[in-house]
């Protein structure tokens, strides 16, 4: 394929997909190890009411207020889950289930009540995202990457998710030692003076930020898939956290690229005329990667578990 076709139509969605996948997979590693994997699921459900409220408050579909609304909803949800868990003495899973389903219901209700039919805001869009539509019309070929005029036309989602990714990487690098310590041995970390509850909250907030930024570009289903599938697959490949994170990034990038290509061109190879949802396909590919590691990964069994023939 020539650059003239690839750069405007496929480069930006592909990059956005890759960045979103990695930005979610990095905090996902720690969430999976801390048995908080479903926080990502909860956050991506409550983003909907946040966005709808932001739309109702401002009356416009603008990225800024919506990101704020979504982030606010994520924080409210995390606080509510914690409050219900403590006040009602309910196990965390059930508390999470109560909060995110109810907030999602509020989102759907608000959406139906308000007159949003004239603008492009609906539940399906929120769930599936619209990766394919993030094209770069100003580009004419590879040369456009160096052309300031054309670069101004890059979809705004690309720089946003790139900044988020850089932030997530910085967080992981700067807090690497305390994060690793508190993930594996919270009590020991506390005796060393690490403020584990603050760190845990910070991790959830970083996860929420990357979820909201990725959600904006690619929809909630990729967010859930990328939080859990690449880290879980990486967990089955190695016993070392450093290697696990490396594997998870590899798996995230592989899912994004393969998923995008399969969604765009797979149906054409099979003789169909239209592409299928890239977000769904990326999630599916990440699941296939996980299935392969679950069957053949070198560290797939629990340590000490009897070998099964």
């Amino acid at each position, binding site marked *: 394929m020539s650059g003239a076709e690839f750069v405007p139509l496929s480069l930006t969605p592909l990059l956005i997909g890759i960045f979103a996948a990695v930005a979610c997979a990095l905090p996902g590693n720690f969430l*999976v190890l801390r*048995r*908080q*994997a*479903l926080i990502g*699921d909860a956050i991506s*459900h409550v983003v909907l009411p946040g966005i709808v409220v932001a739309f109702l408050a401002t009356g416009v579909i603008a990225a800024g207020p919506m990101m704020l609304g979504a982030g606010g909803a994520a924080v409210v949800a995390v606080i509510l889950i914690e409050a219900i868990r403590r*006040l*009602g003495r*309910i*196990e965390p*899973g*059930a508390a999470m*289930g*109560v909060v995110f*389903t*109810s907030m*999602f*219901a*509020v989102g*759907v*209700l608000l959406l*139906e*009540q308000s007159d949003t039919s004239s603008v492009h805001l609906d*539940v*399906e869009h929120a*769930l*599936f995202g619209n990766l394919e539509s993030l094209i770069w019309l100003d580009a004419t070929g590879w040369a456009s990457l160096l052309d300031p005029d054309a670069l101004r036309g890059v979809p705004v989602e690309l720089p946003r998710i790139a900044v988020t990714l850089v932030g997530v990487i910085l967080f992981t690098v700067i807090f690497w030692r305390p994060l690793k310590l508190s993930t594996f041995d919270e009590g020991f970390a506390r005796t060393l003076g690490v403020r584990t509850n603050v760190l845990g909250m910070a991790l959830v907030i970083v996860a929420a930020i990357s979820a909201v930024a990725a959600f904006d570009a690619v929809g909630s*289903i*990729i967010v*859930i*898939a990328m939080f*859990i*599938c690449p*880290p*879980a697959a990486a*967990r*089955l490949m190695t016993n070392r956290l450093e290697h696990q994170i490396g594997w998870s990034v590899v798996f995230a990038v592989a899912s994004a690229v393969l998923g995008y290509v399969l*969604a765009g061109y797979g*149906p054409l190879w099979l003789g*169909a005329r*239209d*592409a*299928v*949802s890239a977000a*769904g*396909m*990326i*999630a*599916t590919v*990440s*699941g296939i990667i*996980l299935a392969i590691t*679950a069957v053949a990964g070198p*560290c*797939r*069994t*629990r340590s000490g*578990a009897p070998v*099964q023939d």
Partner: protein
Amino acid sequence: MIVDALLLQLGYNATLVALGATLLGISAGVTGTFLFLRKRALVSDAISHATLPGVCLAFIIMVGMGGDGRNLIGLLAGSAVSASVGLLCLSWLTRHTRLAEDAAIGVILSVFFGLGIVLLTVIQTMSSGRQAGLEGFLLGSTAGMLWADAMVVAVGGAVVLALILLLRRPMTLVAFDPEYAAARGLPVDRIDLAMMGLVMAVTVVGLKIVGLILIVALLIIPPVTARFWTERSDRVVLLAGLIGGFSGYVGAGLSASAPNLPTGPIIVLVGFTCFVISLLLAPNRGVLAAVLGHLRFQRRVHLRQGLLALAQSQPIYENLTLRLLRRADLVRADGVATETGRARAAKALRDEKRWEVVRADQAHEAAAALYDGLRDIETVLTRDQIVDIDARIGGPQGVGA
């Protein structure tokens, strides 16, 4: 309008929806209780999302065979098949790999849902053009509910309830103590699978009314709400069924009473309202009860410490303590103890001394463990024991010349 809706006066469709939602709420609440007591509430999330690819595949197959593609029973059968596949993958992942259950739930949920979305886009581009509103299964759509659809819900709900009646004892046992159940020789794995199968059945039946995302709420919220009110599992089951049915009935009624009120979210929000009320007001486990209990405890501590201070003629500066003593008529406004105040204070000091003896004596070890600084010693020891202790303390003695 709302009264009409609740009395089923809003026409045929609204009545069907209300009855269907009530039945669904009852069976979801009852089934969800076992899931909640087993501490696996979010498994329902994985199951419900795993229904989507099945619905789509069933539609594609039915259209491919020249049918309409919108046959509810066919779609539900498809969803049941893919949900069972998801369930089996979930239990395989947790049993044969090192992944924890929450990660496995997330994997199944996202991958199956992603596959479902891929299939949905395939359907949208299918030449048949009959996009039968499969999106309705995401959030439920009750607008065009038919008699046959209501019958599916009713029969499905009744079958689920009957099966739970049969399996309730082994399921309760497994939910509370799986090791003991295994030691008794019960097939824990198979009972777990049966429990999940029932959850799957409820999910499939509820797809039409509340959709696959919100059915999770109907499975989780009623049991959590019911748990606030009682400590007995059979009552939790009954209450959860009642709360689920109530949410379904009132929610369906409310949504029929005005336009733009989608049934699924309204049902969930009615349930959530019940939850919040229970969280705040339930006896023993509720927030209000906890606050009141704390205040009562605080008053007892202050009163006790105030009496001890009076007995030792120490001045009291603490406002709450003074107010409590004054209100109980133990001190006068100027802070001097009244007759009763002096008597109560002497008693408190004597009790404190008695406790001191009890706690120093190995023979009273069991009683000493109950000491918390507030407990009346008469509630722990018999009168004879107290007399014995008093003899050891001795009466007042004159100071030798």
